[in-house]
């Protein structure tokens, strides 16, 4: 249903954009320039050599594209809406220079990577503060910003350290990340394939979030987990606890393997193999709390998993006992005529399937597991293992705009992930429209609140950033106090001044200084840059932001209309 809607929407847009596109009598060049000026995203601007070619590109590709994704809008987005300060505050993890125990070089050792238009990659960018990042992004207008690991040294100066046999340039910290992409589910969804998603298959992502999020928190004990919509067909997960950031590649691999059930192989029918007399508690919990319900109440009917012969054959192929498979096949082939209209055919068949496999006479272990194996095959999360296993993998930053869809990579609240609807995620053009509309009636609220990205940023702050920074501060303080204690205990601390101990003459004075620091911190906020502190922002975004001069962007915006 919703796919239909999406198609209709695209079609109507297409008709609107090219009212006479099927009439050849409009001058080719006029249409071309029309397309080029307004609708073709930047990669296609250069295709103006042949009329025929341009049209064919436009027909195939434009529906996939955000119609108004252009660099001017992106510039405007970076200029007015992109939450640089929040991003930097996040990846600094409390190392913001306010506490004597914090690591001043921390942010500057983090790799950022920009993708410019025409696939130009700028890797190993590094920034020491929000302003540097902001200026660079505004100047370069990258279509994509990736976040990499924290290295041992400033990645921009890596060559200077690369001399000699022992290369000290290496990643030392990185969030534990997961990348789940809908394309990996193509064999279990019939509604769309490849890059497309719709509300019928999106529940697969909801399942993934629920299963992984629960295990990360309950099993592994992580607390600071950020889920982000990837902008098109998947989700990203950032686990940001200190412990998670310091995991070795081997430990990351172990966690990824803990989650791995699906062992895809092109030439085998059975992709999930559950052996043993019981399921591991993690799998058992996932099955009873998430997978089973989603399979039976959502995907079974949503995807029509048993409705046609081709589809139920796929499931019958997973039954190790051929006689049972043929019994069901026989029943289902006949039932086409007799099935009552009342009950959904998928549900009826699934009940028959379960009954036969779990009934007394087939209680053999392999067969009982078979029901679970099928549910797992059709629902269990499929992770891109390589992304999670290595520290130096890049991952797109939250709040980027996906260049193909124009949708903003907004955070997803794992507790309310069933409510998340990828088709209503704000797009770049929508935001610009809102900005323009609101701007023209000169609302007094800040840009963020007035546009639909405001909610996303509020969610980012309240459910993720604030608790994270609180924990980071505690961690920094604790380790600082521990260091002070150690330097107090070791007699030699005076003769070998380390950074911490050299600053302060005695532990007591140090404590005084910490207190001073913390006391003064609250008053610091007011003086900071108005876009600055999250406490200020989340309480009342407004007043400070209202000061921002709108005249700077209005003419530019007009120009691009």
């Amino acid at each position, binding site marked *: 249903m919703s796919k239909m809607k999406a198609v209709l929407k695209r079609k109507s847009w297409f008709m609107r954009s090219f009212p006479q596109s099927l009439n050849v009598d409009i001058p080719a060049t006029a249409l071309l320039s029309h397309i080029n000026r307004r609708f073709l995203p930047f990669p296609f601007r250069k295709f103006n050599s042949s009329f025929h070619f341009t049209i064919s590109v436009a027909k195939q590709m434009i529906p996939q594209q955000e119609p108004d994704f252009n660099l001017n809008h992106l510039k405007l987005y970076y200029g007015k809406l992109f939450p640089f300060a929040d991003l930097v505050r996040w990846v600094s993890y409390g190392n913001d220079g306010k506490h004597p125990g914090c690591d001043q070089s921390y942010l500057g050792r983090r790799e950022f990577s920009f993708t410019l238009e025409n696939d130009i990659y700028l890797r190993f960018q590094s920034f020491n503060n929000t302003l540097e990042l902001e200026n660079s992004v505004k100047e370069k207008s990258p279509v994509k910003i990736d976040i990499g690991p924290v290295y041992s040294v400033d990645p921009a100066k890596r060559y200077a350290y690369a001399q000699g*046999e022992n290369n000290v340039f290496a990643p030392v910290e990185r969030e534990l990340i997961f990348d789940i992409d809908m394309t990996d589910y193509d064999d279990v969804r019939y509604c769309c394939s490849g890059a497309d998603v719709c509300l019928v298959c999106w529940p697969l992502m909801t399942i993934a979030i629920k299963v992984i999020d629960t295990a990360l928190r309950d099993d592994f004990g992580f607390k600071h987990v950020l889920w982000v919509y990837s902008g098109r067909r998947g989700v990203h997960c950032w686990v940001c606890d200190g412990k998670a950031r310091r995991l070795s590649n081997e430990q990351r691999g172990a966690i990824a393997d803990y989650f791995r059930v699906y062992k895809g192989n092109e*030439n085998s029918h059975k992709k999930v193999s559950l052996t*043993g007399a019981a399921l591991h508690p993690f799998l058992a919990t996932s099955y009873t709390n998430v997978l089973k319900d989603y399979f039976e109440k959502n995907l079974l009917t949503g995807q029509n998993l048993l409705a046609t012969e081709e589809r139920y054959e796929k499931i019958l192929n997973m039954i190790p006992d051929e006689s049972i498979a043929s019994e069901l096949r026989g029943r289902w082939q006949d039932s086409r005529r007799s099935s009552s209209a009342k009950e959904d055919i998928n549900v009826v068949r699934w009940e028959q399937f379960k009954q036969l496999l779990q009934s007394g006479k087939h209680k053999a272990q392999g067969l009982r597991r078979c029901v679970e194996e099928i549910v797992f095959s059709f629902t269990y999360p499929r992770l891109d293992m390589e992304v999670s296993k290595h520290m130096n993998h890049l991952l797109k930053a939250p709040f980027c705009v996906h260049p193909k869809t124009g949708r903003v990579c907004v955070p997803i609240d794992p507790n309310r992930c069933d409510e998340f609807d990828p088709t209503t995620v704000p797009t770049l053009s929508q935001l610009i429209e809102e900005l323009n509309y609101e701007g023209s009636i000169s609302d007094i609220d800040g840009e963020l609140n007035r546009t639909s990205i405001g909610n996303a940023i509020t969610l980012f702050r309240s459910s993720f950033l604030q608790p994270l920074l609180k924990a980071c501060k505690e961690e920094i303080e604790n380790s600082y106090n521990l260091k002070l204690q150690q330097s107090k205990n070791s007699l030699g601390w005076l003769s070998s001044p380390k950074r911490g101990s050299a600053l302060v003459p005695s532990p007591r004075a140090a404590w005084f200084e910490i207190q001073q620091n913390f006391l003064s911190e609250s008053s610091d906020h007011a003086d900071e840059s108005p876009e600055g502190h999250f406490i200020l922002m989340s309480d009342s975004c407004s007043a400070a932001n209202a000061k921002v001069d709108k005249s700077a962007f209005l003419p530019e915006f007009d120009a691009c209309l």
Partner: protein
Amino acid sequence: MEIVRPQSRRNFLSSSNDAVSVPTIPLYRSAPSLEVRLEEFESFAIDRLRVLKGISDGMSRGKKPEEMENLVKDLWKVNMRHQHASDVLNKDIISHFVLRLVYCRTEDLRKWFLSMESALFRHRFRVLNAEAQRAVMEEFDLPYRAVSNVEFESIKEKLGQVARSMGQPVPTADAIFYKVPFEEVPELVAGRKVLISQGYAYVAMNQIVSLVATLFRSQLSKTLILTNRKWTSSIREQEKHRLTPIVEALCSSYLGPDYSQSREYADISLKDIDQVAKNSFPLCMRHLFDKLKEDHHLKHGGRMQLGLFLKGVGLNLEDALAFWRAEFSKKVGLEKFEKQYAYSIRHNYGKEGKRTDYTPYSCSKIISSTPGTGDHHGCPYRHFSEENLRAALDRMGVNSRAMEDVIDKARNRHYQLACTLTFEALHGVPCDAGINHPNQYFSDSKKILQSKQKDSST
């Protein structure tokens, strides 16, 4: 560790450590202060190297855990004994520290040493009795306590689930579990072999080897880096005339035993097959080998031609199965490999069907074969287009002058002469007998390479 300094000879370990009689494993925390004679310095290290090399071979052959256990036990017994019982432990420690010096010097050496020493430690730990295991754990100073009865009761059901998921009996009330941060036992986490809750893994007593081995590995990894620093900063220079030559010679000779065997051609093991293929395979086999690596598949004709050749070269059945399995499973899956292909490999080795021990194909047989579409077997000098032959020869490293001669022979249908010329161009040695058989090409090539090796080492 002191090395022949004029001091009174005193055996640090046997005098201060009563535990010599108890079979235990030293953790090699710090180098012992005891004297070592230069000959022992070297010979102990070589003995330990034999053990590690054996483990490495066993692992690359894909031996099962219990097979590995026996292998390690045998290797240790054969190589690490000492005429004085009291010196056995010393030999263990000395050899370890010498090899640490030898293998600290590059990333590759460290990696190899680390994984072999860890495997050795793991297997030695496993065969200890419970008491000795506990002693080792104590020495590691593990900060973990056994799970209390109250806590055990609360998670009993889940622990049972984990045990049953691995096909093991449900733990009883007196079973001991340790509560360990999950990141300390990555391999148990990866296999879902432990219950994990709130960041802690519940490790059963029989899984403790995994925890201890991980600790051992990470400690060794750190000290190897430190040793390397020390080596480059001071030891190498200080010991320029005494230890440095020994240390530098030791690591290059870890492949030694393979070459010293006076067979016509040495057995090839899976680990070096890539290198051997590059150096000593004739073009027809090299091509099949590369295609197999590239496509993870070969059609029947190719499997026969290459498979029998490898058998003739000295690849035993076990290795052959592992070799083909490794490639084919990437494409067709393990299950299908075992069903469809493993049989014909065993067949080639005379283990199935009419049990004929098939002989490798000769040149005349290969030249007269008729490869079809998708086939890669046959004689490249006959079956390749000139363009492809040039490209293939170029990849082998035949220089352009020799190339023209080879192409000329191939054009005139003297395929074996073309192959002989290729051999001469690559080895720089005349081959008077000519090439009649791929396995002859291989053994001649090995002989020449070995004699070159000897020349350069003497």
